[in-house]
């Protein structure tokens, strides 16, 4: 792999890793699960979807029926609604088990795709310089640190590139988050007794 491809791949992986951290794994899981629920052809999910639609219809009919004027019809609809709710609960339990299994694999996949390549790159391209600094830009001891452990002095290796890019992204995130968050100054509570004349 040429230095440009390594640099680009590493950068994308690090950015992805930080994006997962910022958005949150649970949020990503939920979004993917919602998409799966919408477009999946799984029998259980289809059944759940149909049951929910039917339940909604029955609920609407029951709401439009007067319990006093058409008691028999209302009772029948109510019984049907209860039955549907029981069925929905049973199917939901099965689907939630499926959801847990999918989330488990999804979490594993996210971890593997964002962590494992970095370790592989660290090991395989540990002697590959990513790019060179111009001469005399940094003092020699700093150049030595940046090239640690095994790239030529005056260049930067994978280890320090990962460290510094992570630092850069996390600090930018901190700046944006801090300026976008507003915390109101608390106002001290004054008791009524304190205001009364002595």
């Amino acid at each position, binding site marked *: 792999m040429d230095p440009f491809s390594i640099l680009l791949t590493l950068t994308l992986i690090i950015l992805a890793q930080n994006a997962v951290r910022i958005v949150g794994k649970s949020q990503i899981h939920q979004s993917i699960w919602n998409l799966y629920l919408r477009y999946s052809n799984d029998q259980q999910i289809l059944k759940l979807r149909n049951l929910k639609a039917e339940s909604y219809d029955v609920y609407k009919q029951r709401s439009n029926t007067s319990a006093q004027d058409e008691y028999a019809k209302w009772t029948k609809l109510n019984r049907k609604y209860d039955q549907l709710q029981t069925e929905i609960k049973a199917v939901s339990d099965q689907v939630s088990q499926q959801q847990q299994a999918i989330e488990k694999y999804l979490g594993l996949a996210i971890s593997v795709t964002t962590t494992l390549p970095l370790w592989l790159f660290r090991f395989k391209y540990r002697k590959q310089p990513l*790019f*060179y600094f111009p001469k*005399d*830009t940094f*003092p020699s001891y700093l150049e030595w640190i940046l090239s640690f452990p095994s790239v030529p002095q*005056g*260049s930067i290796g994978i280890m320090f590139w990962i460290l*510094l890019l992570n*630092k850069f992204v996390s600090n930018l995130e901190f700046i944006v988050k801090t300026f976008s968050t507003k915390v109101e100054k*608390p106002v001290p509570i004054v008791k009524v007794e304190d205001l009364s004349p002595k």
Partner: protein
Amino acid sequence: MSELTEAEKRQLLREKRKAKLSQGGGLDRLKKITGENNSKLSTDVPTKEPTADATTTATELPTQGLETRINAHDDPVSEIPDPLNEGFDGKEPDLDQLIASMFNKSAGHENPNSEEQGVPELMRRFSSILQGGDSGAAGLGAEAGGINPLDLLNSLGGSNIGKAQEEYGSTPEEIEFNKKSIAYKKHQNEVLKAKILVVRLVLILSLLFVYGRDFSLSLFTQTYAPNGSSFMRVFLTLELIFQTSLFFFISKNKNFTDDSLISKLLNIGGAFIPATYRNLLQTASKYQVLLSMFLFDLSIVVVVFAIRAAFNF
């Protein structure tokens, strides 16, 4: 009147105790001692009629006229203190006074006029023991340079309790207000930190623009930079100014280091870390903040160089 022998005295004392116990109320006295006299449950032992046992046993003693001496003013038995009744007048015992009196008795001096009596005396003695003080004892603190007992108590969590009360107040409104105040202070610190980061970011980018725009960067070889040494000089000078001013700022504003890993460690386990190491860790947390800031500056330069090297501009 003949004097009582030791055996007779002991026998009389035993009889007196037995008589008291047989009259009941022993449990009440025990409760007075343990301070449990607030119980609503009835714990009275059914009282027996005044028994003749005590009298008869006493009269069975071989000494003549002993019964009259028991009630007499110069009764030798009455001088022997009753451990069950001593010091109790039906009131709740004051623990501080009890400890003080116990200590004074055990120390073998009872000077009621001394001002350093009671708990302060106790603390003074602890202090002297720990510091290898006036009694000449080779105390625990002799090697360690002395430990203040109050510090010791504080390090065991005493100060944290007081601190928590001060921080969070006592009423729900005060607790809520103080929580909000802490969150607000924390946010203010974060804003300050973010501002410092922005200033550094802008200055480093300006520096790169002024001195680094003529740099030609490469992915494959090290190139010559006409302004390289000037860039380095200005960069290092800026760093020196940033770090020095930040160090003085952190030294005055301790909350600024709250986010560092070492500060978190200190907050969690600070009570169990000896004072010497605690100070070292506090200093280390300051340097951690400085290092983190320096790495951010370096990362700006490196990221800009990487983009320019990758896309050749």
